[in-house]
């Protein structure tokens, strides 16, 4: 069964460092998303991406964040200068339709720990 894969599964970084989280969405999907979950809190939407551009982003997704689809398979989330409060589980998701009409397929998540 096709699945969304994410790397790394866990990354520890120092505050102020740049981090890149990688995702390989399901191959025939067109819509890509990043969500995050801070420990004990709700799953929060960060950004959606369609047709090689950001289609929607939340207030969390400030100038420190960027997304890229550098080739036909990868979808990356970059945090330019990490802060302690960026520590969370980051989930990539993809769908073949818009998120409001179909299910999102999530990866297993990348745990980011900022020290």
């Amino acid at each position, binding site marked *: 069964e096709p699945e*969304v894969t*994410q790397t790394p599964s866990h990354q520890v970084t120092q505050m102020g460092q740049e981090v890149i989280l990688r995702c390989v969405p399901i191959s025939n999907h067109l819509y890509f*998303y990043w*969500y995050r979950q801070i420990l004990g*809190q*709700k*799953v*929060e*939407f960060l950004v*959606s991406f369609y047709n090689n551009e950001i289609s*929607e982003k939340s207030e969390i997704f400030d100038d420190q964040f960027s997304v890229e689809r550098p080739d036909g398979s990868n979808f990356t989330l970059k945090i330019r200068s990490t802060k302690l409060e960026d520590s969370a589980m980051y*989930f990539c*998701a993809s769908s073949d339709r*818009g*998120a*409001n*009409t179909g*299910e*999102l*397929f*999530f*990866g*297993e*998540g990348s745990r980011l720990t900022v020290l």
Partner: protein
Amino acid sequence: DQQVKQNSPSLSVQEGRISILNCDYTNSMFDYFLWYKKYPAEGPTFLISISSIKDKNEDGRFTVFLNKSAKHLSLHIVPSQPGDSAVYFCAASAGSYIPTFGRGTSLIVHP
């Protein structure tokens, strides 16, 4: 600002009995609702959804009920099995907007 609320952080149920997970929402524009299940160290997986034009959707042991006037939906699992033990997230979306998730309810099904 919690537009989607899951007020019970945890629920414990005996195997074979019914599990009822509740979700309330505040945004009357929400028209599509989803439930996701999440096991530890895994990402959320889609379970079942319902459109606002319906009040019930059933898929095997899982049934979602929607009460639009009360802005409330619930997920029923009958009969509950130990493998159902997971965190269940309610999510809702309005039009073309991205789903908003609740905080989740941790379900434990005892053998």
